[in-house]
């Protein structure tokens, strides 16, 4: 059922990868599944699902809490997963990796445990208009609760970040720059290294939301010298229920706990409580153990391919799709920044994104329609919603062809 793409990039065969994803074996409305919604959540290869199931049925117990065999085995796997994430992001120390339940929680952790303690009324947080709500609402909390001021940095019409505007927005009251590594709507990849350099020059730390960036770009937190970087498992071809925060050791050590409970304490008495060192301090309760094994398997899976070739493949799909939609004069692409990742958002004249998505769906083509949890960006571009096709390693040019054909059909039905 999988069509052969017209070009196979050296070093990566998308069809071989695709065969690892069982979901493509099941038709949708009798048609092959054309899954172009990986930016919302990626599908999971059998390697990930098997790793989780095998672990859960042969080595599972609670971690850090027992001396018995399964507890030791489980703890080993959990801590090995932490090292896998450490290497994936090239963090210097393994204790700089905190497991969370997802990308959103990782950002909230920084908001609650780091920034909340440093905000006086009038202090500023700099963020871009293309942030996902997960990198907006935690800062709105600090506005609502502590009088922080959000300073918004615009993007240019092509969706690229205006680095000079960002620089200008960082002032003496700025306490944090919170910026996406890659926009989930525009595909824009931000120049993190440059951003960090500019912010650090003014003594301001930087958090990057890597929910999308870590999927499509190589990340080296040491080379970036970034303060915080967040990832989420389910977009990395891994399970739901897990993500991670990278934080520089000096920051994590200075942060107060977030959730309170088992494992994050040193000692609890009736009168008092003292806290464990990072990362345990931020991992209250039973962590997502099985999910950590799944996340590690997902990273291993990604690393089993030449990532540059995967990237080239995704870029090929993007370019191919970008060219193909030029034939539709009723379609306007939003986001054409140089070097952008494999996400194509567009507006369709006189056709609401939801209607488009419904028609595409019946052709087996899954795209996302809506505000993509990025309402300030929608406002910036004067739209209420867009349609979005996002590409992952398992997509092929045949998927793009199906998208284009389905779009033509939608046009026919709706106009």
């Amino acid at each position, binding site marked *: 059922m999988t069509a052969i793409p017209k070009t196979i990039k050296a070093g990566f065969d998308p069809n071989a990868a695709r065969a690892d994803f069982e979901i493509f074996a099941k038709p949708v409305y009798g048609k092959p599944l054309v899954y172009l919604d990986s930016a919302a959540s990626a599908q999971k290869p059998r390697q990930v699902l098997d790793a989780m199931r095998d672990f859960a049925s042969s080595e599972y117990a609670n971690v850090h809490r027992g001396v018995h065999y399964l507890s030791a085995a489980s703890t080993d796997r959990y801590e090995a997963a932490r090292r896998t994430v450490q290497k994936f992001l090239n963090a210097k120390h393994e204790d700089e990796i905190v497991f969370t339940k997802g990308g959103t929680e990782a950002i909230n952790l920084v908001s609650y445990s780091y920034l909340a303690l440093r905000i006086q009324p009038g202090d500023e947080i700099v963020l871009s208009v293309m942030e996902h709500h997960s990198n907006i609402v935690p800062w709105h909390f600090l506005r609502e609760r502590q009088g922080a001021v959000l300073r918004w940095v615009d993007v240019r019409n092509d969706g690229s970040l205006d680095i000079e505007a960002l620089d200008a927005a960082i002032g003496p009251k700025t306490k944090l720059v919170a910026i996406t590594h890659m926009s989930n709507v525009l595909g824009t990849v931000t120049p993190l290294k440059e951003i960090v350099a500019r912010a650090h020059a003014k003594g301001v730390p930087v958090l990057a939301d890597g929910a999308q960036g870590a999927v499509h770009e190589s990340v080296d937190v040491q080379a970036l010298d970034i303060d915080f970087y967040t990832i989420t498992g389910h977009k990395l071809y891994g399970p739901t229920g897990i993500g991670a925060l990278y934080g520089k050791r000096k920051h994590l050590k200075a942060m107060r706990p977030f959730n309170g409970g088992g494992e994050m304490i040193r000692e609890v008495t009736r009168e008092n409580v003292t806290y464990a060192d990072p990362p345990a301090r931020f991992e209250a309760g039973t962590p997502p153990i099985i999910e950590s094994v799944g996340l590690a398997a997902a990273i291993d899976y990604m690393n089993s391919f030449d990532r540059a070739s995967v990237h080239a493949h995704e870029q090929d799909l993007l370019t191919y799709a970008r060219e193909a939609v030029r034939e539709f004069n009723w379609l306007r692409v939003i986001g054409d920044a140089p070097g952008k990742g494999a996400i194509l958002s567009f507006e369709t004249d006189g056709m609401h994104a939801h209607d488009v998505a419904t028609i595409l769906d019946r052709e087996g083509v899954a795209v996302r329609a809506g505000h993509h949890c990025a309402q300030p960006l*929608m406002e910036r571009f004067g739209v*209420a919603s867009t349609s979005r096709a996002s590409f992952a390693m398992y997509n092929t040019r045949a998927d793009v062809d199906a998208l284009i054909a389905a779009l033509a059909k939608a046009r026919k039905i709706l106009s």
Partner: protein
Amino acid sequence: MDDSLRELYQDVILDHSRHPRHFGPLEGATNTAEGHNPLCGDRVKSNLIVDANDRIADITFEGKGCAISQASASMMTDMVVGRSVAEAEKLMGGFLHLVKGEEATDLAGDDREQLDVMAGVSAFPMRVKCATLAWHTMKSALEGGDGAAKSE
């Protein structure tokens, strides 16, 4: 083409959505409410003039949305104007049954016929919210709504 799609995007519906009736603000409205579809962020506003006899003397709607929600809003305003509040609410009950693919025994005659064009929505569970948004918003307005009706 997929029959259920044809059914969903009938000409009547596309026509309503392109040329919505009763669209715009309403001078002297006695009841208004805003509705919101959390799925897409679309909002609709419902404005009514309810007279002393509990009759909907006039109604309009505002806001942008998909073909389904616009058509539904347009048809709704067409149908409820001139009716009593109780009748409008009964009609809404029937409509909700219809778009959810349930028995709509409370819909009869002309009403049934007119609304039947919306029955295709029932094959698209994710779109039911689009179809019901305007109705929920009207209901919320009639109840002296808090301005935040949600589609269900």
